[in-house]
């Protein structure tokens, strides 16, 4: 991992259903990031299409790699950047199976992708109606260090974030499309996941309004002891340029040694009990 990593929390609002316009906005952000010598730019969940697309997800989804991902690869290559973004992914093997996916692209191309494992289908959310569950936690080795990916509602599941951490992720990235009524939960949970895993956590939420859902923004970079290092505005689009220093992980891990003190035998029980509820 580099000694200092410069991040951009790209809290954009999307034009729902308009991939061209959204990709154009992403390109503008990447150019700005390049000017600021950034290393990694993080965009929100489903930012290529917007969140509330209902049946139109079937028309908007693309494979990864595919036209939109390739466009972002091109931007990343041109600007020598790492980019994380979300989009509806069409399975390469079927015609109507979609995933809610986060992709990680580096200057050399696609590094990996994560398919959301916890799809909210309650309250105003209807993700399981459109998306298939992902089956793999994802932590990828990059030139910037090991980066773990999760998406929005995943943050409510500490076991997934723990797994990503145990796979080596020092920076956990959570991309999100969280509407306003959930703000307090995310503010607590993002800090909790960083502290309990002694890891950096970058949370990037959408801003703007889609179908009455008001995304609250509030993106943030949280340090391994829970300190909010940088935070974006609430409710409106914002770009936050911030830095993390992986050397701070060691003192944090020594101060609250949750990883040292893990009890693996509990995980077997966790599996057994969770099958019974």
């Amino acid at each position, binding site marked *: 991992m580099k000694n200092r990593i410069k991040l951009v929390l790209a809290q954009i609002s999307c034009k729902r*259903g308009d991939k061209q316009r959204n990709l154009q906005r992403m390109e503008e952000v990447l150019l700005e990031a390049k000017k600021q010598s950034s290393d990694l730019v993080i965009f929100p969940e489903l930012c290529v299409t917007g969140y509330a697309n209902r049946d*139109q997800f079937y028309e908007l989804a693309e494979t990864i790699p595919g036209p939109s991902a390739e466009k972002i690869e091109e931007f990343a290559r041109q600007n020598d950047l790492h980019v994380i973004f979300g989009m509806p992914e069409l399975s390469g093997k079927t015609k109507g199976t979609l995933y809610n996916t986060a992709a990680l692209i580096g200057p050399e191309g696609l590094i990996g992708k994560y398919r959301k494992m916890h799809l909210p289908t309650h309250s105003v959310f209807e993700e399981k109606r459109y998306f298939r569950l992902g089956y793999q936690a994802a932590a990828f080795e990059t030139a910037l260090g090991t980066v773990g990916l999760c998406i929005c509602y995943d943050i409510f599941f500490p076991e997934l974030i723990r797994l990503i951490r145990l796979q080596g992720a020092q920076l956990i990235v959570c991309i999100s499309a969280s509407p306003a009524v959930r703000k307090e939960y995310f503010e607590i949970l993002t800090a909790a996941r960083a502290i309990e895993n002694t890891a950096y956590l970058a949370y990037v939420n959408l801003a703007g309004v889609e179908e009455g859902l008001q995304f609250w923004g509030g993106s943030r970079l949280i340090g391994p002891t829970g300190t909010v290092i940088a935070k974006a505005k609430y409710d409106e689009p914002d770009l936050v340029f911030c830095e993390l220093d992986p050397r701070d992980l060691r003192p944090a891990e020594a101060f609250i040694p949750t990883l040292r003190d893990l009890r693996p035998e509990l995980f077997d029980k966790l599996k057994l009990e969770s099958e019974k509820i």
Partner: protein
Amino acid sequence: MKLDSSVLEIDLVETAKRATRFIKEYVETSGTEGIVIGLSGGVDSNTIAALTSRAIGGDRVLGLMLPEEETRSEKDIEDAVTVAKQFDLKTQICDITPALRSFYKSIPIFDQSDKLCKGNMKARTRMIYLYYYANKMNTIVCGSSDKSETMMGYFTKWGDGAADIYPIIDLYKTQVRRLAEHLGLPKEISEKPSTPALWPKQLAETELGIRYNTLDLILYGIERFMDSEEIAGQLNLEKATVETIRAKWLYSEHKRRGLLGPKLSYRTIGADFRIPRDPY
């Protein structure tokens, strides 16, 4: 869960901000020029006057006052005008009496003594005026239904229940009153007893048979899946009172639903033909 008035407390600043943002975004993406609202002089429509004015500016909001001979109240008109002035709304008065009389005359089975059917016709006639203005002026109709009356089915289907948006439909009446006060409406308006103005001396609480501060707590309990016994116990009410409210809520679901038809084809409008509102 404890059921007392504290559960209905809301963050008024945040609530006003979110409702305002909702209105503004809808108007912006609808491609229309502004908003028309029915301004009755009551707390709900006056709250909507304040919110719409905050959202897009009062000069883009028309408050339409629609009195008719049986329920006309100069006090209500005065209150509506006061609030319209306070929030810089444009206003217009249309007396709907001639239109109503024509309806009464032209319906062979019209029954003067059936005040419910007649009252609903008044609400639907007001809707026709609102949509005429909206259509003519390229604006949207903003409804002022609140959560209490909507859950109770205490509105006229395709009458006052018809609008393009409902910015306070997720707030109980007691919450609307607090929001009204927060938005700067005079206390006498924020605390004014509600009436649908369908017939003379009609008062919502009398007709519903319960005070809003109790009703709202019952509805809050229902919303959170509490059973009737528990709600009644906490509020010191007869279980039958809660059951009656629950029955009204369940029975009136047909009024809250959109287009309902049988499933006959691949994707069915109103059921599984699910697309976003704003086109791209």
